[in-house]
Each structure stands twice: as structure tokens, then as C-alpha cells.
């Protein structure tokens, strides 16, 4: 142990980075403080209106933790391992009575320890602040712990890569370049190749096809970079394969860094050329990353398609590749004669490009020759949607953020009928695709024509599983075929079990701030019982992400956690849920009389719009009438006044007059079975205000209410 870790040196290393530590801590707490302040202030503000508790999860208030691996780790590593880039410093550290491995491990653990302390403080401080504000905000701990773990794993990976880069290079510049090459290079190349494959087979492969370790989500650090670039696949909030993969990758890089550090010579400091292999490897990697477009172009164009334009394109890519390697060589060696070294990398880069093209051709062959045999398929997984093509029914689009979509997509269907059905559908799809793909021109046009000839189509992603072999493919179904598949899925016990209940733990929200958290829980408890007896088609109108219907009486949304990742559930109350509606209206009824103050405020604000100048006020008004018995929204009107040239009050008068006329014409409003909502937002002098009110009434009462407002304009 003494040969691997020195506690005194560890403390010494911590002393060396203490300034950087406190700077990073200051930045983290500064950002966290602002976030906490804003969130608590918002919650208190909304609580004053309706006592609803806001639930805080990792994504809401802990984004600042990314700073730890993105900024703190590079800063700490450069600070502590800077001695590797200075000859005198390197000599000093190589002469002190410590084993190299001890120095390396002790220093790297000091960086890690500082990062962990940052992570804990930067998580604990906002969490404690939220706990103090527990009346308004509740912290959901498990996802935050998960998120912390993933941030920690990202920290490990970034640190390991930087350490390897420092161990292999002799200058800050080369270590920085090498870090970028290791961190981004492989994943950048893989992402482009994956994109190339999925775009070539976009009718057969989902856009986010799961390529296992080649997937964009598997490396958490790359996933965050990719998320920033493409805003897709954020896997930082869940524990799963990406966490494990990133950890293992970090461990591999760390072991490599130890080996390279042990082999490193002190004289390598200040000189990137002292390790010619590393220098050659970095240059070649830069060349390969730059040359990936050459490989993709060579793959995409058939021999007979290569014309002047294509040749020009290739020449530009080759020029860019050589330039990238030359610039690297010039910046690192600063000697013109060393530019000839670029020539050594060119054949290797060319071979790598050829290998990429061959790999792509092999993949193409595999995709086109994959014909699942139903008798050998052990199970399939099914999810709707997943392509950017516009000729399918968008309402059935799979959304990975939604609980039911996500959970049902994980069901392993081993029912023979389902397997037979999807296998047959896929094989037909494959034949159509092959025919189009292999015919020269208009191949995609012909497919497009086919899909349009069938009317509205439903796109479904199928994952075929056969022993260890897994393949994700897309099929396109007509209305009747889709219904057939749905019926088969609905008969699956696991599917039914999932769909006919809300998850065990969930947090309910409601946009209009009419209910407290306890009231929302009471309503959804009734709903959870009520949906158990609903037929599937009705259930889908209540708990279905894709069933927004403006006639629904009320909508809530809930969040829940699966594998620590947050998922959303949209809940629509309608005539299929009379008991829940009754509960909801009972709660409202008890509170209705308390709304008179708010109503007066609404009337007051909207009666005096002309008191404000157009520069300091913005407002809109929603007026809604629900039928309690049917649970439907019978009338809705949204009023957005014009701000230029037209009198506010004139506009308001017209609006309210229209509403009064409508109410008086509707004789069926007289049975006292309606509830009226008025929801107004207004911003005065940049201060946002919201006034919502509701009341049970009959038609005459509604009319008289608006006449009262109308009369204020007279």
C-alpha cells in the first residue's frame, strides 16, 4: 500500500489545488444558489396562489454538477500534472523518494477526492436549501443520487483520459489535443458511421437504432456532448448499461495511464517527440478522424456515380485531412523538416478508411440479409414510431420520455401470434425495400409511392431477439394491420398489467394551479381504481400520451421514475372517468366560494386595461365552460388583445359581449350543471401574475357575471 499511496503526498496535492478547488466551488455554488433562489421563489409564489408542492428532481436544479467533469477535472489535472510538461519540474518529481505509481495514484486520487467533495457540497447545499423550503418544494432523492453517480462516472472517465494524455505527451498542447482525440474522436467517427447506416436504411432501421457499444448513449460523457449537439438521448439520469460501460472504460483508460506513466521518461517533458510512437499515434488519429468523410463518401457513391463533382468532394476531404495532420505537426514540432512525418501517417489513415468502407459494406450486407425466422425468435419488443418520415400516423409516435411508451416498449412478447405477425410483416417490408434499394434510381421514391398508396400508415419498431442476436427493425402497417397488432399486444398479460394502473410512486401536477398536492393525489387515487374496469380503447383516452383532446374536462400530468430516470404520464379526465370527475368537482365545489376575491381581481384587472400603457402590460384571458355531467369542455374562448392602435377596453367589450350572447343562446346551460373557469395571465412592468378562478353556476349567473364586467366599461 505504501508503494501505491502516500497520504502525506495526498494532502500535499490537495494543498496544491486548493485555490482551483475553491474557485470551482464558488462557481458551482453561485450557479446552484441562483437556481435554488429562482426555484424556491417561483414555488413560494405559486404556493401563495394554490398550495401545491413542487417536486425537484436532478434535471431541475442540479445541472451545475456537469461543471465538475467539464471544468474542475481538467483544471485540477493540468495543475497537478503540469510538472510533466516542464523539464525541471519533471526531474524534481522523478528524483523524490516515491515510486512513480505512488506519485501517479496519489495525485490522481487527490483530484478525484477534490471532485467528490465538490460533487457532495454542490449537491448537498441546494438540497439542504430545498429541505428548508420543504413547505413549497420536495426533493426526490433517488434520481439525484443516480445523477450524482453518473456525474461521478463521467468524472472518472474525463480524469482517466486526461491522465493518459498527460502520461503520453510532453506538452500541454499535445496533451490537450490527445485528450480531445480520445474523448471525442472515436465516438465522433462511430456516430457518423451509425448515422450513415441509419440514413441509408431509414425505412428498416430506427433513427436511434441500438448499436450496442456503438450507441451514442452508451458513453455518458459523449452522450452529454451529443445531447448538446443534437439534443437527443440523455442517459445521464438513469443507472444502466451506460453507467457500467463508462465506468469500465474509465478503468481501462486509468490502467493504461498508469502503464504509460510508468514507462514515461523524465526527459519527455517539454518535448512531444521523445515518445515518437505517441506522437505518430496522435497525428494518425487526427488524420483518421478528419478522413472519416472520405470513407463515408466512398461508401455512399457507387463506382459509376463518381463524377467530377464527387472527385472534387473527395479531393477537398483529402486536403482537409492532410491539413489537419500538418497543422498538428507544425504546432507540436515547430520544424518544417518534420512535416514530412505526415507522409508516414497517410498510408495508415488510408488503410483505416478502407477498413471503414469494408465494415460499412459488411454491415449493409448483414442488414439486407437479416431475415428473421419466427420459429427461432424467442421474443420481440415493440414500440411505435421512431422515424422522421412524415407519412405515418404521428399520434402514435413513440416518445421515450413517456412512462407507458417506455415501459411497454420493454415488454418481451413471446406470444407466437405476435412473433408470427411482426416477422411476416418485416419480411414483406424487407422484400419491398430490397427491390427498391437494388433498383438504381428513384428507389426511395418508389417506396414512398407504395406507402402513400396504402393511405395512413403506422410505423412500428420491432426488436427481434434470437438467443444472443438482437436486431431492431421498422415495419409500416396499414390501419387494419396496426389494429390487429394492437389487439394482439392488448391481450398480453404484462401489457395489461402495466396499462391498467398508475405506477407505484408518482408525483401529480396540474397546470391551472387549482388543486393542492394532496387533492391531486386524492383524485388520482380514485382514478387508479376507476381505470381498472375500463375497456382498452377508453383507457387509452385517459392514460395515453397521444390522445390530447380539447374536449377533456381536465388534464393533469404526473412524473414517475423507472431505473431512476424520470418519465411523464399525461392524465385526461373525461366521460370515461365519471367517479374521478365527481371527486374532482366535489373538491372544487368545496373551494368555489373562496374564489370570489380572485374573481374580483380578474374583473378589476380586465376592467382597467387602459390604465396601462402598451409598454408595460401584456395579458390574455381564457374562458372555459365544462359540463360536469358529460365531463366535456363545452365552450372555450381565448382572448389575446391587440396592443397597437386598438383600445383595450373596446376589445374587451367586444369579447365579453360575445360571451354573454353565446351564454344566453345556450338554453342547456340552465340546468346548473356547468362549471366556469376564467384563467388570466398578465404581466405588468415585467412582473408576471396569474389569476385563475372558477365557479359553479347556471347560465343566468354566468351571463350576469359578464354583464357586471361589461358594465364597468360603460
Amino acid at each position: 500500500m505504501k508503494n501505491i499511496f502516500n497520504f502525506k503526498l495526498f494532502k500535499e496535492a490537495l494543498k496544491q489545488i486548493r485555490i482551483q478547488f475553491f474557485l470551482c466551488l464558488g462557481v458551482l455554488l453561485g450557479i446552484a444558489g441562483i437556481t435554488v433562489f429562482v426555484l424556491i421563489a417561483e414555488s413560494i409564489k405559486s404556493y401563495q396562489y394554490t398550495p401545491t408542492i413542487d417536486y425537484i428532481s436532478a434535471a431541475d436544479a442540479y445541472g451545475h454538477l456537469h461543471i465538475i467533469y467539464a471544468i474542475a477535472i481538467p483544471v485540477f489535472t493540468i495543475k497537478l500534472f503540469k510538472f510533466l510538461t516542464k523539464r525541471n519540474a519533471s526531474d524534481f518529481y522523478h528524483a523524490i523518494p516515491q515510486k512513480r505509481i505512488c506519485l501517479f495514484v496519489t495525485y490522481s486520487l487527490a483530484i478525484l477526492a477534490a471532485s467528490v467533495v465538490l460533487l457532495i457540497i454542490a449537491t448537498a447545499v441546494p438540497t439542504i436549501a430545498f429541505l428548508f423550503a420543504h413547505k413549497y418544494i420536495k426533493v426526490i432523492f433517488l434520481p439525484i443520487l443516480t445523477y450524482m453517480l453518473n456525474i461521478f462516472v463521467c468524472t472518472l472517465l474525463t480524469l482517466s483520459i486526461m491522465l493518459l494524455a498527460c502520461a503520453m505527451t510532453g506538452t500541454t498542447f499535445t496533451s490537450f489535443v490527445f485528450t480531445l482525440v480520445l474523448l471525442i474522436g472515436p465516438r465522433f467517427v462511430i456516430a457518423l458511421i451509425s448515422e450513415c447506416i441509419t440514413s441509408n436504411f431509414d425505412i428498416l432501421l430506427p433513427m436511434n437504432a441500438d448499436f450496442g457499444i456503438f450507441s451514442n448513449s452508451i458513453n455518458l460523457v459523449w452522450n452529454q456532448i451529443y445531447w448538446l449537439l443534437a439534443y437527443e438521448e440523455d442517459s445521464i439520469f438513469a443507472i444502466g448499461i451506460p453507467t457500467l460501460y463508462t465506468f469500465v472504460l474509465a478503468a481501462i483508460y486509468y490502467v493504461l495511464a498508469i502503464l504509460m506513466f510508468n514507462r514515461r521518461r523524465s526527459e519527455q517533458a517539454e518535448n512531444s517527440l521523445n515518445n515518437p510512437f505517441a506522437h505518430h499515434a496522435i497525428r494518425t488519429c487526427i488524420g483518421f478522424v478528419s478522413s472519416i468523410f472520405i470513407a463515408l463518401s466512398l461508401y455512399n457513391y457507387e463506382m459509376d456515380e463518381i463524377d467530377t463533382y464527387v472527385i472534387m468532394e473527395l479531393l477537398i476531404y483529402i486536403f482537409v485531412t492532410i491539413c489537419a495532420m500538418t497543422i498538428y505537426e507544425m504546432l507540436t514540432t515547430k520544424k518544417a523538416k518534420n512535416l514530412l512525418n505526415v507522409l508516414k501517417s497517410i498510408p495508415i489513415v488510408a488503410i483505416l478508411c478502407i477498413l471503414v468502407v469494408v465494415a460499412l459494406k459488411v454491415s449493409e450486407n448483414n442488414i439486407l440479409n437479416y431475415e428473421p425466422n419466427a420459429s427461432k425468435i424467442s421474443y420481440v419488443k415493440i414500440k411505435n414510431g421512431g422515424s422522421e418520415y412524415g407519412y405515418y400516423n404521428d399520434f402514435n409516435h413513440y416518445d421515450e420520455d413517456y412512462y407507458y411508451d417506455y415501459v411497454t416498449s420493454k415488454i418481451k412478447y413471446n406470444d407466437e401470434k405476435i412473433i408470427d405477425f411482426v416477422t411476416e410483416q418485416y419480411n414483406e417490408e424487407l422484400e419491398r425495400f430490397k427491390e427498391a434499394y437494388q433498383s438504381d434510381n428513384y428507389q426511395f421514391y418508389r417506396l414512398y409511392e407504395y406507402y402513400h398508396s396504402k393511405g395512413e400508415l403506422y410505423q412500428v419498431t420491432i426488436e427481434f431477439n434470437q438467443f444472443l442476436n438482437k436486431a431492431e427493425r421498422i415495419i409500416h402497417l396499414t390501419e387494419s394491420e396496426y389494429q390487429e397488432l394492437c389487439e394482439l399486444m392488448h391481450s398480453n398479460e404484462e401489457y395489461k398489467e402495466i396499462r391498467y394502473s398508475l405506477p407505484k410512486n408518482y408525483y401529480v401536477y396540474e397546470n391551472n394551479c387549482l388543486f393542492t398536492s394532496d387533492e391531486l393525489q386524492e383524485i388520482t387515487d380514485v382514478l387508479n381504481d376507476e381505470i381498472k374496469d375500463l375497456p382498452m380503447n377508453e383507457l387509452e383516452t385517459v392514460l395515453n400520451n397521444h390522445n390530447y383532446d380539447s374536449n377533456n374536462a381536465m388534464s393533469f400530468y404526473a412524473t414517475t421514475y423507472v431505473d431512476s430516470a424520470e418519465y411523464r404520464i399525461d392524465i385526461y379526465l373525461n366521460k370515461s372517468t365519471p367517479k374521478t370527475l365527481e371527486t374532482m368537482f366535489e373538491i372544487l365545489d368545496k373551494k368555489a366560494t373562496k374564489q370570489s376575491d380572485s374573481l374580483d381581481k380578474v374583473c378589476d384587472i380586465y376592467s382597467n386595461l387602459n390604465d396601462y400603457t402598451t409598454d408595460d402590460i401584456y395579458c390574455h384571458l381564457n374562458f372555459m365552460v365544462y359540463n360536469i355531467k358529460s365531463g366535456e369542455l363545452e365552450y372555450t374562448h381565448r382572448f389575446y388583445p391587440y396592443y397597437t392602435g386598438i383600445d383595450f377596453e373596446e376589445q374587451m367589450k367586444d369579447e365579453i359581449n360575445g360571451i354573454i350572447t353565446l351564454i344566453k343562446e345556450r338554453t342547456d346551460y340552465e340546468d346548473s350543471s356547468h362549471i366556469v373557469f376564467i384563467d388570466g395571465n398578465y404581466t405588468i412592468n415585467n412582473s408576471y401574475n396569474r389569476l385563475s378562478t372558477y365557479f359553479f353556476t347556471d347560465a343566468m349567473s354566468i351571463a350576469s357575471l359578464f354583464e357586471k364586467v361589461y358594465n364597468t366599461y360603460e
Partner: protein
Amino acid sequence: MIDAKNLTKKFGKFTAVDDITCQIKKGCIYGLVGSNGAGKSTFLRMITGVYRPDNGTITIDDLPVYDNPEAKKKFAYVPDELYFLPEASINRMAELYASVYENFDMERCKTLTEAFQLNPKRSINTFSKGMKRQAAIILALSCRTDYLFFDETFDGLDPIMRSLVKSLICQDVIEKNTTVIITSHSLRELEDICDQLALLHKGGLVLENDVDNLKTERFKVQIGFAREFDESLFSNIQYTKFKKVGSVASMIIKGDKDETHELLKQLNPVLLDMLPLTLEEVFTYEMEALGYDFSNILKGEE
């Protein structure tokens, strides 16, 4: 004891140290002399385990040095190019040294800092070149190690500080039997402190001997006779550089001083003076005997 066998170190095609073999005994102050680029610093870096030899072995008290803390904790090293943590004071550097040297003596560090009249709290980077070197020497001496290695250490020190450092080194050697290696391109810098001197040239060790031996083995004789004489008169004596002006001859003689004196006295000279040589003269004559031009070696003419 430091034992170097067939040490070789190459940088690309350039051989910095070429097959050096030497032994440095405990309690000895060993001076390494040579021109710039002779290989002194490279040799010292191999002894301190900074460089791994391409060939040969180096041990300190029978322990291999490279990546071996047990061997490394026996010495402190003041390199030619000093290193201090950015913005660090002597106190701060002392903390760093204390974290890696088990016997680091904070009290001694404090005492020496006062003796050198340095501010222990001021950033070393604001010190002059000489003060930085003093700080490095203080830190090294405070490590309380059995071996001390100084690379061009007296450069930049004024005569008073130079004298103070030399006395401190001698004190350690006397009190603790410390072994010291000092490199310099100036022979005069080392002659009054070293027990043993070695001359490096083009990476090779061309001469190594005890200073006392060097100084006593050779001496200059001036001898005069009332009669005519020539070189043949001294055929039973080992001499070089014979020169005769009138009736007086001078020569450099290698051998026992008393025996030589007796032999020459028997020749009945009217004048007989036996003069000591400066170390530079000894080296010049030794090197000439080996076929080198010593004056060129120290000038770095290669």
C-alpha cells in the same frame, strides 16, 4: 557507497554518458569536473534516478536507484535547473519536502533560512537567482539524508554564501559522514572542498583520483648545479616537462616527495626547491600524460 558500472545514456544519436564506471565511498566529497556538455548533469540525473541508464547499473548502498524509493530517500538533490511550486515560499516548499522525505528537519530549515537571511514566507519566485539557489540548498540540507548531490550549485552564489554553503556541507560530512557529489565546470571551485575529483569529457570519465594524491604525487622541482649537466643526470627519477635555463632546471616529478628529495640531494645541487602544484596544474599534466589537452577540455573545445 555509490557504485556505477558501465553507465551509458543516449539521447537519440547523441551519447551523453559513455560507459562510466566509478565508486564513490561513504563520507567522501566527490567533485565532478567537465566542460559544458561533458555529461556531468546527465550522470547526476542517473545517480538520482531521474534518468534510466540505457546501459549499466547504478546502486546506492547496494540498492538500485531507478524508481526505488528506498534508495532515493538516502539522498537529496539540488539540480542545475531548480524547481519550486508556483508562488511557493520556503515554508511551503518545506511542507512539500516533508511530505516525501521522512527525516526532513523543519527546525534545521528554519535555522538555515535565518542563517542565509532569507524570508521564509516570501514567494521564492521573487528571489534573485542566488537566493533561489540558497533556498534549494537549505531545503536539501534539511532533508537530513546520507547523500547530497549538487549540480552546478555554486553558480550564482556570492563568495560569502559560497563559503557558508561549503562549510555547511563539510559540517554534514564531518558530523554525519554524509557523502556529497558536486559538479562544476570550474576546477578552482572544487579543489578546496573535494576529497576526490573526477574529470568527465565527451561523456567519458577520463580521470578520477583523490585530491590529496593528486596534490602530493606530483610536485615541481627547481634544481641548480655549479657544474654543467643535462637530462641524463636524472635518469633514475620519473619526471616530465624538463626545462633547463642556464644552470637551473625545472621539472615535474611524480612520486614520493621525501624519497625524491633524498635522491636529488645526493646529486649535490646548489639550488633545490620542491614546489607544490595547483590542482589545475596537476590536471593539466595528468591529462597531457593521457594525451588530452586539458586547457581545451575545460574550455569546452571538443
